[in-house]
């Protein structure tokens, strides 16, 4: 927990505290991400070879050729999509059990990052599928269709979260939704699998590719970099959720304090003849 909220809660801070969601942890994660992205680009575009191997007929070559370079984004994004949305479902379950806002905010942060990564997974997958499979979209593919449903479910989750409501009630509804997604996905997967009992998808990308050492290394590097990036995003997003909740209650507190102050000293009637409400309303907005 200290990674998300800082190490020493409650210690008084100088008023000059930086007004952002960063800390030393995020700066380290951010630096690692930036260095990793540079390394990943070098490996993905320059050092790693295109995928090609001798075809069945002499003199021909088959494979994904340079399209394999899309895999270095697609596979890491897919893996971290599942991790993020899985964490969201788990955090939702824990929230229902413990009822602590901490888990609710974690679920929110993970869902948002998961949806962004899921969009990247789908987009890069389609762009890769066009040259390699010859189609943008393939209904017969189980993972493709399941991932799209996954995206829709958690986009709905975020849509529900964006509706203004009492924090406690919203957290409970969201946790049911987050958990519901995890309940649904295995059923969707199974049904799509039976629906078109065939799959174009690489059973495992690692087996399908002719594994050059550098190809494998680049893929693993991509997974690592995307993981650090996802963690960096998660920490910032979590703190943002914290700030949102604080700002909400701070606005309320300010409005309350103002009203109390007005009630305590009914003196100083100005030309407005006792119109106290506008200022309180402004503070609460």
């Amino acid at each position, binding site marked *: 927990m200290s990674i998300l909220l800082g190490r020493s809660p409650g210690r008084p801070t100088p008023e000059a505290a930086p007004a952002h969601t960063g800390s030393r942890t995020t700066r380290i994660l951010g630096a690692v991400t930036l260095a990793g992205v540079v390394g990943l680009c070098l490996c993905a575009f320059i050092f790693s070879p295109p995928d090609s191997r001798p075809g069945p007929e002499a003199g021909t070559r088959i494979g994904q050729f340079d399209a394999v370079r899309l895999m270095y984004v697609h596979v890491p994004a897919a893996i971290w999509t599942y991790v993020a949305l899985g964490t969201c479902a788990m955090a939702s379950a824990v929230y229902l059990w413990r009822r602590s806002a901490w888990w609710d905010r974690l679920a929110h942060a993970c869902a948002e990052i998961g949806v962004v990564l899921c969009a990247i997974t789908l987009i890069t997958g389609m762009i890769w599928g066009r040259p390699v499979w010859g189609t943008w979209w393939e209904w017969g593919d189980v993972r493709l269709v399941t991932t799209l449903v996954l995206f829709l479910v958690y986009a*709905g989750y975020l849509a*529900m979260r964006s509706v203004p409501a009492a924090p406690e009630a919203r957290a409970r509804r969201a*946790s049911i939704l987050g958990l519901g997604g995890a309940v649904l996905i295995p*059923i969707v997967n*199974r*049904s799509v699998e039976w*629906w078109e009992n065939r799959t174009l998808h690489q059973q495992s990308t690692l087996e399908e590719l002719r594994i050059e050492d550098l190809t494998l290394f680049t893929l693993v590097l991509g997974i690592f970099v995307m993981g650090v990036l996802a963690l960096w995003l998660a920490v910032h997003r979590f703190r943002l959720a914290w700030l949102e909740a604080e700002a909400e209650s701070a606005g309320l507190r300010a409005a309350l304090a103002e009203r109390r102050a007005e009630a305590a000293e009914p003196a100083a009637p100005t030309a407005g003849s006792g119109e106290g409400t506008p200022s309180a309303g402004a503070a609460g907005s």
Partner: protein
Amino acid sequence: MREVLLVAAKDLRIELRSRVLLFQVAPFAVATLVLLGFALDADRSALRHFSAGLFWVAVLLTALLAAQRSVAVEHAGRAADALLLSATGPARIFAGKALALAAQLAALELLLGVAMVVLYDARIEHFGLAVASAAAATVGIAAAGTLYGVLAAPLGVRETLLPVLLLPVFAPVLIGATRAFGDALGTAAVNGWAWFGLLGLFALVYAVFGALAYGPLLEAET
């Protein structure tokens, strides 16, 4: 069990009195079926071939309206509070409401089934399979609709939010019920009973999940 039936009977009685189902939802269902017919051109063989899928799309769209209606009834006049005060467990309230919704959906499906036979020239070859898979799908739709309905109900934007939440959840039902009906109507060479199993699994999972989740959701409302 008596309480479940009481809640269900209450919902059905409201429907009988208000006639919303008869005068608004049922015409919507048939209109959907007619529009889907227009979309596929007046090609008799194509219509028959796709009749199972079109039927279930119409059912799911109609189910959205019915689910919306089922929670709107509860939300108007804070009737949900009275239900909570009646000391009936949340799981029982859920079961009762889902049962009432399932009964309404079954009536609508009957209507749509007749319309499908008349308009799309569909022929039901395996009656038992059609009824069994429709029953399983209906329970699943009703359970999911009741759960997600109460989830979206207190929010001002429920008319737009509920479809966003519910339609992806219906995806496996649409796939399963379409395949099972394809077998029952003789338009798809698949094992319909296997798909009936999947529909049953969906219904079971959502009935259990809904019954467990309903408590925290009702709490959230108050």
